């Protein structure tokens, strides 16, 4: 992986970039940071931000025309822009110690001549002197200030210039006009800022404004000589000093590293929830009091995009911005234990991959896609925590093998349409598949393909497994004559769109809504529709469900934040159970109204949360809504039951599920225990196998006082444990069921 492979996902993100006002500022001052410090009354820090950017803060605070205010995002709310210049004056007034810092830097052996001691020349001279260049300023008059000497507030400017030069060494040659550049042949570079109409030594026509260069190598022009205002001239002096520095180092003028001329002063954000506030007016003649200034600075909206972080529980909980995540995704591929460790694993596997970040981002940055990329890279490199997705991959293997089936219909070899219910719909509620299948047979003469779309492999980042599954589906689809597929599951439809785009996709709900035979009835008079995250870009599926619900006469509420993931997406619950519970709870509380859902996983999440909800297929077929969630073992049984019934109907063949030697063991499991097992993703079938193995091999522990036993079963990724007691022949009561991921590597002699 190259760094750009990861950072390309977040390249457009402008979190942390300057705000729109700063792009309009001639100095690119970080106005947002300045105002944040001012609002907190940290005047010295605010002043330093101002001074470091503007060189002569007093001059700028008096003369700046404030182009920033035209791009202040306060104005989007109808408010007046922040009074930046007045706050600059306040920071100068209230900063306790404005003495410039001096740093111990070794002197440089390059000599720079600055011609003209107006503010443009002075800002260049000051910057170069701060970097310990040997600077000489030539001025034909007997004092500095140039055209500003006639300004009524020149005494303040004069004091400001004196203050800023008080910590540096620079030679001033007043009364020394330069008639020819030949006089300056001993200097390594020359900056000419002789003011409006001043002497350009015949170089003005060859002036290049980007780097202030001329046809004479090493001679730079700027300031009013080139048409700049005093404030622009100061800003040019700073930029020219950087160009001169690069010239002295490399012998040619080129842009300073890290400097960008991009301009995004129209990059505005949506300021939802921001409250309008009027400009604070100064009560006294000398400008803002401290409290007034703090209040005015506090009106700054601190414009910085954090929409993805504000809208996603996962991003909020890890508190990392998109750029940092991208760099960590890259870094994590090249760690060198024990000297470095991975830092983004938990985030990568805690993401629902629901696309909310992309949909709220002004420039469509998709952090989910970045983290999905990380999962794929890790699995490919064999450095993925396999246990986090093991359960679902095993379920996928089951659904794609024993649970799979394809038929064009009774007595047919090919079909134009086939139903693709997905693995979860029938597992959760067999009637949803059986009724839909029968409806589609009547309506479209549709066949059926039972199986798994591959979402577990997709979410696990297991591309090889995903490809094998996709190939299997494509074979079944080809065998049926390439029918259009009718989807009940938005995730299946999305995965097919990504990996089997050649297959035409139709929404079951659309077909149901168009049928006069279907007369939906709802248990609720009013409900909110909970659209699954995978249906985000599927307007036809969303509309079909609304039409069905509308037919049932339900008053529909649209959720404020549509298509949020219920929590199931990305199979993140094993990686981050706490976050999973936070998300499911938040979604259940998104509306007080009961939910109409059309995803089996959403229904199960809300049933577990105790949220009143109904699947749209219950309404379409007049079924009693289920309020419970089947156990993991029951889900497999449901899937096989669906296959048995459909296989019998379409082919007349009795389906014989695989049998195991432990199938006839009876387990007695309390409701409470069953719930705990489901939460831990431990199936009763696993316990049955573990007990059978232990009883056959004798590899178990027992308590002779009451016959309690405990045993383990090591599977490729997980080790399962079960504590049980035989209550009758081949009947076992379950007391504990748990697992761990670590392996014993070997035993060492006991210390005792």
């Amino acid at each position, binding site marked *: 992986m190259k760094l750009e492979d990861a950072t390309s996902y977040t390249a457009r993100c402008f979190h942390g970039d300057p705000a729109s006002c700063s792009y309009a500022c001639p100095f690119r001052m970080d106005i947002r940071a300045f105002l944040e410090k001012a609002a907190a009354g940290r005047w010295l820090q605010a002043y330093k931000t101002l001074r470091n950017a503007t060189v002569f803060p007093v001059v700028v605070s008096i003369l700046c025309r404030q182009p920033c205010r035209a791009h202040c995002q306060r104005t989007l709310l109808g408010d007046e822009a922040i009074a930046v210049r007045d706050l600059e004056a306040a920071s100068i007034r209230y900063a306790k110690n404005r003495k410039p810092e001096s740093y111990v830097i070794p002197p440089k052996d390059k000599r720079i001549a600055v011609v003209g001691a107006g503010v443009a020349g002075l800002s260049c001279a000051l910057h170069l002197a701060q970097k310990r260049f040997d600077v000489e300023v030539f001025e034909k008059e007997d004092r500095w200030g140039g055209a500003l000497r006639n300004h009524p507030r020149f005494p303040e400017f004069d004091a400001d210039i004196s203050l800023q030069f008080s910590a540096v060494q620079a030679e001033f040659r007043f009364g020394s006009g330069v008639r020819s550049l030949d006089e300056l042949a001993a200097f390594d570079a020359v900056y000419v800022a002789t003011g409006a109409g001043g002497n350009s030594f015949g170089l003005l026509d060859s002036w290049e404004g980007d780097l202030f260069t001329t046809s004479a190598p090493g001679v730079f022009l700027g300031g009013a000589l080139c048409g700049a205002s005093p404030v622009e001239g100061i800003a040019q002096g700073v930029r020219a000093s950087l160009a001169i520095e690069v010239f002295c180092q490399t012998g040619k003028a080129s842009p300073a590293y890290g400097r960008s001329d991009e301009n995004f002063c129209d990059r505005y954000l949506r300021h939802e929830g921001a409250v309008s506030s009027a400009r604070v007016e100064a009560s006294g003649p000398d400008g803002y009091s401290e409290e007034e200034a703090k209040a005015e600075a506090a009106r700054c909206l601190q414009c910085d995009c954090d929409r993805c972080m504000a809208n996603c529980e996962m991003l909020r909980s890890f508190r990392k911005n998109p750029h940092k995540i991208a760099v960590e995704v890259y870094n994590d591929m090249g*760690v060198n*234990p024990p000297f470095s*460790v*991975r*830092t983004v*694993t*938990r985030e990568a596997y805690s993401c629902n991959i629901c696309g909310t970040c992309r949909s709220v981002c002004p420039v469509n940055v998709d952090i989910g896609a970045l983290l999905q990329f990380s999962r794929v890279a890790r699995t490919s490199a064999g450095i993925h*925590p396999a*246990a*986090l997705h093991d359960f679902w991959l095993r379920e996928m293997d089951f659904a794609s093998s024993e649970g799979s089936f394809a038929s064009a219909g009774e007595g047919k070899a090919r079909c134009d349409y086939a139903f693709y219910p997905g693995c979860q719909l029938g597992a959760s509620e067999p009637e949803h598949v059986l009724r839909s299948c029968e409806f589609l047979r009547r309506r479209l003469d549709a066949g059926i393909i039972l199986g798994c779309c591959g979402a577990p492999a997709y979410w696990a980042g297991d591309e090889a497994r995903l490809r094998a599954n996709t190939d299997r589906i494509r074979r079944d689809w080809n065998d049926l004559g390439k029918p259009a597929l009718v989807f009940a599951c938005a995730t299946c439809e999305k995965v097919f769109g990504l990996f089997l785009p050649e297959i035409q996709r139709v929404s079951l709900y659309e077909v149901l809504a168009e049928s006069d035979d279907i007369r939906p009835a709802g248990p609720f008079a009013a409900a909110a529709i909970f659209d699954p995250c995978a249906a985000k870009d599927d307007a036809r599926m969303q509309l079909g469900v609304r039409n069905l619900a509308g037919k049932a006469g339900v008053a529909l509420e649209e959720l404020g934040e549509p298509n949020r993931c219920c929590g199931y997406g990305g199979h993140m619950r094993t*990686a981050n159970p706490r976050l999973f519970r936070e998300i499911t709870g938040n979604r259940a509380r998104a509306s007080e109204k009961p939910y109409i859902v059309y995803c089996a996983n959403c229904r199960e999440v809300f049933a577990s949360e105790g949220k009143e909800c109904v699947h749209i297929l219950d309404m379409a077929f007049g079924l009693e809504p289920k309020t419970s969630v089947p156990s993991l073992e029951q889900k497999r049984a449901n899937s096989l039951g669906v296959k048995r019934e459909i296989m019998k109907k379409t082919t007349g063949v009795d389906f014989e599920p695989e049998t195991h030697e432990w199938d006839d063991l009876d387990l007695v499991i309390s409701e409470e225990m069953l719930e705990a097992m489901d939460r831990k993703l431990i199936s009763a079938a696993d316990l049955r196998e573990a007990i059978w193995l232990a009883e056959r*091999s*004798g*590899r*178990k*522990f*027992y*308590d*002779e*006082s*009451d016959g*309690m*036993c*405990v045993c*383990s079963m090591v599977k490729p990724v997980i*080790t399962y*444990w079960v*504590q049980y007691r035989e209550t009758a022949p081949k009947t076992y009561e379950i*007391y*504990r069921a*748990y*697992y*761990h*991921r*670590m*392996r*014993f*590597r*070997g*035993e*060492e*002699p*006991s*210390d*005792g």
Partner: protein
Amino acid sequence: MADEDRIWKCAKCDRRLEKRKTVFSYLGHTVAHQVYACPGCGNVFIPEELAEGRMSEIEQQMEDK
């Protein structure tokens, strides 16, 4: 009977379990811990509290590294 008071015996060796230092490995990392094991066949016993407590914490730390 509370499970922590139980005296487990290995069904194969019919011997009471003893604490032993055992090395666990996960995702290329290793950690040693005192756990009960059969002194005969070495079969290790992990109680639920250990699996879902300290062991789970270490597993997460190792996954994060």
